[in-house]
């Protein structure tokens, strides 16, 4: 920082002297960070605010010292390392506010409460503590910018009761409200100023319900600080005693809008877009006045902001700096690392500039010496406190806009923060952009209909967005496992070396070479998130989503779907002069029974004739558009009587909505825009040549699609911001009707009576699709009929509802509702892929055996149309399974150990306990996924007692309970898919192929087996042999050569396997000269390589038995 300051000082001044002096540094800085979702939490923020101030005093001394020290020693990392950490220096003349506009891409936005900047606020607020919005971002050159936006005041609306409220009462209302707020503890925050700055009367309409009348007066209440908004809301909704009117409660509007969102909406700013401050409208802060680590710090009034829509030159992404982080901790044997006790031993950091193919900085900080690593900076420290300090310094110096990693929110970042607190490294906590502001951690429970409930931590690092690939991938993709290994295998196509945490401590306690080993591993883990980010184009997709929906980037990962729709509704409503009521969430509205989408009954079967699928394109959005369903078109039943039937629609669920001729709904309008934009994006995508542009456009069209679909969900979310079940129930009712309607039309038209060859049959209908068997064997013919039917039916619907023919399934295996598989064709020449739904091909609580068997069966049945082949394949697999010929990894089931005290005994919990008794060091911890196989237990053993660690089972040659796998894992899925195909599917599971069973003898048999001595047996015929009689009986002796050949053949296969498996592991771990440490249990060859070793030893023993 100091280096830059020096440079900047020497830059030619021009109009350098700032016009306005900011007082921010002196005031109680450090705002509430992100304001929270509802009133309850906002109190929290307030408390934090005070605590913070207090803390501030204690730390101020420290920071003054630090600042001085920093100036005395201009660069902390003189020497080799750290030279490429910083952002590019500011270009000369770039700071001239009087002649040049400031253009930058904002990426994060928060606010702070501080002494008002007199140049920007109204006279009566001078000296008050008011909210100041901070916007962080980068300019075209890649310099960091922090803009302090002044003058924007929090406000909300109150509905005035009909009559009996004169303009004179407004002041009484204000005073009463003021009094209540002060009583509720507002005085302290207000600091002698009015809590309720002013109240104006504005003429608006409510969004809720169709209202043909004129605009009505509303009170616009402007408060001093954002916290007062929700406080006022509570007070007003509860009832306010107004002199002369008595106690009355009022409905509030837009009082549940987050201050930051309010600001963005009013300034027309959307997440991650480019902003421009025209020349002369802003002032640049001098280095001495800066309160953040940003290179450029400016003050600006909110009215001056020009927000550019994402078009043309403002479509791309700025040179955002992305820091990817991974840490390693030295846990104690048998415990998962705890920040209270276990040290952080390594931190890897990769800094990448958005758009560049390779990281700028690859840094690893280690505790204790570490041998150098080619291409990376290695910084070693003797003390952990130094390590933490230096890393915090790296964060400040590299100044990332976005911090990414894998599971950083739940593990890495909280661990570092807790650890720094434990070691009392005060400097560490200043990771944010704002000087003197510490990072804040708090537990949150994230709950959303779409994503489920997840416990998480909310970490506030001012001005830096956190983007945890773990959370995001968990949201966006359905995978069998979310370990970094599996995720990178899935998306990057490579296995990752996985070092068990118990092994990490040993490596740390070794020498500089072993620590280097660990460092290489740690660096790799820091690089993978960056590669995933690039591969999945997350930067493009998420920025695009933020732009489309208008919320800040950080909302997308930390909040649910509804905030995005809410943001769009607010924006639209504002354009129309409509006010959005603040509804109380929770509780089901009475009177509306809400029925879900109907699914036509599935006619289960194996269809060998093409089945055409007609899909409604964006069904729910188009229903809402077609029938003008919206909050603002909703008609109360009493109004309907006085209206002409041409002016309203009665929905199948019995609600009334005004037609668009009377009033166009804003939800349909939002949807039209979204879908229209999507259509444009798709068209541009087709024409785009540039890879970069394609990425942006594809991200955009996906974002638009998701956004359009979430609008319906928003109206149906009973715990959401604005549930309106009249709308959502109508939507699904229309959907159901349309499916039925389609079915009737198609069967009526396409029948022999109308001259068609066959009677068409609707075999199944899902939420938004109908599957029709036209009866023709010819694929091309079926496709033509499908096209025709789609058009025919579409004509009977209101625009823009459209039925489209998209694909044919041929053949098609329909099992039941929501369970089917088929070969998908979009053109008659070549099939596209095999499509399955609801079938055990991906679910992770199945072992690989089930997935493989089911997938192969479907392939055989559908692609090869070879039912007999599938049957014999199943028989072969069952026979192989019973004869112990399958790879053990096929049988491994994994389950997460989420808590220890389950009510019912569970196999994996019991196993974890068993493993802890064996070796506490390597036993699974809470949160680990436990892999296990089912072994043959003693007679009468409970199912939960039969789980065993696969490695232990391999090493001790424990017999697998193959019958269990047949009965409990294979039977049901197999019966399900073969039910429609075979007359007697049970025949798969019984018969000749199940007779031959091989049971390996356990070495460590329990109970009586422990006392048995296994006598020598002839290798050829299993006849017992007297002691010392070699390995063959006298009858088999003559065939010694054949028997030997047979054994050696087994050895050959094992040797070849051993070689293939272990060299692959060497390749993954990237070293020839060092042993492979990897314990990635997700890796398909992990158990195989172990089994191979065990088998080799056994085989070797056998072969040794042949006298040389």
């Amino acid at each position, binding site marked *: 920082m100091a280096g830059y300051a020096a440079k900047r000082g020497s830059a030619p001044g021009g109009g350098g002297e700032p016009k306005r002096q900011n007082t921010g540094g002196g005031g109680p800085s450090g705002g509430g960070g992100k304001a929270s979702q509802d009133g309850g939490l906002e109190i929290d923020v307030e408390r934090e605010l005070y605590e913070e101030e207090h803390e501030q005093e204690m730390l101020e001394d420290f920071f003054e010292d630090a600042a001085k020290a920093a100036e005395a020693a201009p660069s902390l990392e003189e020497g080799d390392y750290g030279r490429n950490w910083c952002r590019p220096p500011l270009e000369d003349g770039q700071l001239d506010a009087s002649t040049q506009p400031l253009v930058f891409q904002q990426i994060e936005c928060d606010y702070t409460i501080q002494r008002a900047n007199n140049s920007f606020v109204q006279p009566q607020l001078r000296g008050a503590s008011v909210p100041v919005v901070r916007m962080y971002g980068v300019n075209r050159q890649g310099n960091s910018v922090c803009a302090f936006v002044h003058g924007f005041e929090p406000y909300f609306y109150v509905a005035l009761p009909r009559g009996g409220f004169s303009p004179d009462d407004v002041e009484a209302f204000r005073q009463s409200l003021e009094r209540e707020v002060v009583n509720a503890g507002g005085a302290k925050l207000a600091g002698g100023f009015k809590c309720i700055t002013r109240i104006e009367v504005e003429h608006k309409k409510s969004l809720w319900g169709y209202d043909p009348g004129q605009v009505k007066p509303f009170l616009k209440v402007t408060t001093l600080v954002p916290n007062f908004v929700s406080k006022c809301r509570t007070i007003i909704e509860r009832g306010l005693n107004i002199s002369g009117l008595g106690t009355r409660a009022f409905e509030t509007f837009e009082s549940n809008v987050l201050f930051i969102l309010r600001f963005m909406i009013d300034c027309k700013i959307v997440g991650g877009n480019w902003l421009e401050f025209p020349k002369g409208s802003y002032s640049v802060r001098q280095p001495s006045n800066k309160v953040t680590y940003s290179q450029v710090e400016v003050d600006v009034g909110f009215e001056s902001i020009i927000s550019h829509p994402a078009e043309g030159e403002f479509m791309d992404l700025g040179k955002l700096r992305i820091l990817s982080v991974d840490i390693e901790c030295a846990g104690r044997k048998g415990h998962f690392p705890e920040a209270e006790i276990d040290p952080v031993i390594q931190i890897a950091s990769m800094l990448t500039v958005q758009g560049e193919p390779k990281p700028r900085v690859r840094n690893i900080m280690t505790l204790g010496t570490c041998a150098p690593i080619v*291409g*990376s900076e290695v910084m070693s420290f003797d003390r952990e406190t130094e390590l933490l300090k230096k890393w915090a310094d790296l964060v400040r110096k590299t100044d990332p806009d976005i911090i990414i990693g894998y599971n950083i929110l739940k593990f890495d970042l909280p661990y570092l923060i807790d650890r720094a607190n434990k070691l009392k490294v005060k400097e560490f906590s200043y990771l944010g952009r704002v000087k003197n502001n510490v990072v804040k951690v708090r537990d949150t429970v994230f709950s959303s209909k779409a994503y489920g409930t997840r416990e998480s931590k909310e970490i506030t690092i001012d001005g830096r967005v956190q983007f945890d690939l773990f959370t995001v991938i968990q949201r966006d993709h359905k995978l069998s496992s979310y370990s970094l290994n599996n995720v990178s295998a899935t998306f990057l196509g490579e296995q990752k070396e996985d070092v068990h945490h118990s092994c990490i401590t040993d490596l740390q306690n070794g020498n500089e070479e072993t620590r280097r080993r660990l460092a290489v591993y740690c660096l790799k883990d820091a690089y993978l998130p960056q590669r995933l980010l690039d591969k999945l184009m997350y930067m493009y997709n998420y920025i695009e989503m933020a732009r489309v929906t208008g919320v800040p980037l950080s909302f997308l990962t930390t909040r649910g779907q509804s905030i995005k729709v809410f943001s769009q509704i607010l924006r639209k409503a504002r354009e129309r002069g409509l006010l959005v009521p603040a509804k109380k969430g929770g509780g089901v509205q009475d009177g509306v029974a809400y029925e879900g989408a109907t699914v036509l009954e599935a006619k289960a079967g194996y269809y060998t004739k093409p089945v055409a699928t007609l899909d409604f394109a964006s069904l729910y959005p188009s229903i809402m558009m077609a029938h003008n369903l919206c909050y603002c078109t909703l008609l109360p039943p009493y109004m309907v009587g006085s209206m002409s039937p041409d002016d309203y629609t009665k929905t199948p669920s019995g609600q009334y909505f005004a037609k668009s001729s009377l009033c166009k709904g804003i939800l349909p309008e939002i949807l039209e825009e979204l879908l229209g934009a999507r259509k444009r994006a798709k068209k541009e995508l087709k024409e785009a040549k540039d890879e970069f542009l394609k990425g942006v456009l594809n991200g955009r069209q996906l974002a638009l699609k998701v956004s359009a679909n979430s609008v319906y969900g928003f109206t149906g979310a009973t715990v959401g911001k604005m549930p309106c079940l009249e709308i959502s129930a109508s939507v699904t009712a229309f959907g159901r009707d349309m499916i039925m309607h389609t079915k009737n039309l198609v069967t009526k038209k396409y029948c022999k009576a109308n001259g068609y060859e066959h009677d068409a049959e609707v075999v199944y209908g899902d939420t938004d699709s109908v599957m029709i068997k036209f009866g023709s064997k010819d694929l091309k013919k079926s496709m033509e009929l499908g096209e025709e039917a789609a058009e025919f039916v579409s004509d009977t619907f209101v625009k823009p509802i459209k039925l489209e023919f998209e694909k044919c399934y041929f053949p098609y295996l329909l099992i039941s509702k929501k369970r089917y598989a088929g070969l998908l064709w979009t053109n008659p020449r070549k099939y596209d892929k095999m499509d399955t739904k609801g079938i055990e091909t991906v679910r992770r609580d199945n072992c690989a055996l089930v997935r493989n068997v089911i997938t192969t069966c479907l392939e055989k049945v559908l692609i090869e149309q070879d039912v007999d082949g599938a049957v014999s394949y199943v028989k072969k697999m069952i026979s192989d399974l019973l004869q112990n010929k399958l790879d053990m990894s096929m049988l491994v089931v994994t389950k997460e150990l989420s808590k220890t005290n389950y009510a019912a005994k569970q196999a994996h919990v019991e196993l974890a306990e068993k493993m802890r008794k064996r070796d506490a060091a390597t036993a699974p911890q809470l949160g680990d996924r436990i892999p296990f196989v089912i072994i043959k237990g003693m007679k009468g053993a409970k199912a939960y007692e039969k789980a065993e660690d696969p490695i232990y089972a391999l090493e001790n040659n424990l017999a697998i309970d193959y019958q269990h796998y047949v009965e409990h894992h294979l039977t049901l899925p197999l019966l399900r898919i073969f039910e429609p195909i075979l007359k007697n599917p049970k025949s798969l599971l019984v018969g000749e192929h199940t007779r031959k069973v091989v049971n390996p003898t356990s070495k460590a048999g329990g109970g009586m087996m422990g006392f048995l001595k296994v006598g020598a047996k002839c290798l050829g015929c299993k006849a017992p042999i007297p002691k010392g009689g070699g390995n063959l009986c006298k009858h088999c002796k003559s065939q010694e*050569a054949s028997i030997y*050949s047979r054994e*050696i*053949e087994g050895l050959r296969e094992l*040797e070849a396997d051993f070689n293939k498996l272990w060299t692959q592991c060497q390749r993954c771990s990237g070293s*020839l000269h060092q042993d492979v440490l990897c314990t990635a249990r997700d890796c398909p*060859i992990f158990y195989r390589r172990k089994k191979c070793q065990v088998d080799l030893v056994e085989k070797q023993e056998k072969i040794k038995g042949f006298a040389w």
Partner: protein
Amino acid sequence: MTGSTARLFHARVARDADLAPTSSAPPQQQQLDAADDLDLVSKDHEVERATCEYKCLDDLYLVGDRVYNKQYAHLYFQRLQNLGPFIRGKVKKKWPGLPVRKILEVEPGVECAVIGTVYKDMKLKPSVLDEYAKDKSLQPHLATTKFVSPDDTLLLEDEGARMALQCRPGPGRQDASAAAAVDPIDFVSGVCVAVRGVEEEGGHFQVTDVCFPGPASQRPVPAPPSSPSPPPPKYVALVSGLRLGDASADPLPLQLLADYVTGSLGDAETVGRIARMVVVGNVLGEVAEVPVGEDKREARESAKSLREADIFLTQVASSMPLDVMPGPSDPCNVSLPQQPFHRCLLPSTTCYANVGRVTNPHGFEMDGVSFMGTSGQNIDDVLRFVGHEDRVGAMAATLEWGHTAPTAPDTLPAFPFVDRDPFLVTECPHVYFVGNQPKLEVALMEGPEGQRTRLISLPRFAETQTAVLVNLQDLSCHPITFASSVGN
């Protein structure tokens, strides 16, 4: 020597085209044809057998207790540990004054030499993980035998770290000679080398030259006795790929071979000069590949070919000393070094005391002339990963690399040795043969320190009906073909 391989070697490799004619009258290019020679069948079955001083050098390759609980890292470690000093010596001579650095000590921008093991990163290299590839079409075609592609890259690794080698000249550097110095296509994984160059921005090491361990030193060939009338030369017969018991093969050439070595056919005097025969792998056909035990008939089939092999080898053994090396298709283990045939497989052959059940690779000495040979896997595997198809060139390359099987264990199964690397060539042999090759190729490699090694790529007998006699005096080679035209 043509094309890309030529520039790799310091040693001169002379092809059989410029073989010096030998003084004595050897059975050069003998063509024994059953039809012509039927009347030549000697009545006298007694052959006077020349004797040699024979020393088996297989101790290195015998693995007593085969323990598979170790990983491969040790093998690479031993390899570099042993070849490192050799290379260091070479570097001193080749690039005097150039500092030799560990990878971790390389300073950017400073020219130096680095010694390490090469790893060739190849996208086409088959991997066991391919079996798990979801998209079946992504699986490399199984029939492919070459895995080279233009974007293969080299990495160099020493005990401490690995670094990427930039072999093509970097941008802005149009040094044509540097471009020609190193090409990844000539390299295979597991070779120990020294590279000369400079570390550039981003950790890449720009290579300008390489230095191999070079052919190891060699003992002089024992001088022929200086008697006025030199004794007639002695020979060692090499034959490979007999594929005994292969029902599809013509049995006659084998019979002719047996008759020849027992003296029943051809020139008994020459035959008598053959001091030993070495059967270089693939004694049996691919019978072992059939899942034995599953099908009783197959088991009998395999037993039958074993019996045939036993009978044939017994015939030979009754007449002269014999070494039997296992090959890739024989019923022995697959990991190199392959251990000898088990006694029970060839019960009657092994009754003879002059039969050596030996390992693959196999080393021995005849009258002071050292032999080293393999049944072919090492060269076959090297050729899958380099650009050329030059078998003898690859053999010379392995001598240059000081290692007979550098691709083991990466792509060639090998036993995970802990305390040694048995494939190191610590002494250059006088004769280096490789069995089971497509055709006979003979060459002479002359090393910079005067080493002279006879290189022999032995053809498969079952296809070419050719055996080779090696003259122990001047190391000349004489193929004998047992073509049968009777049936034609």
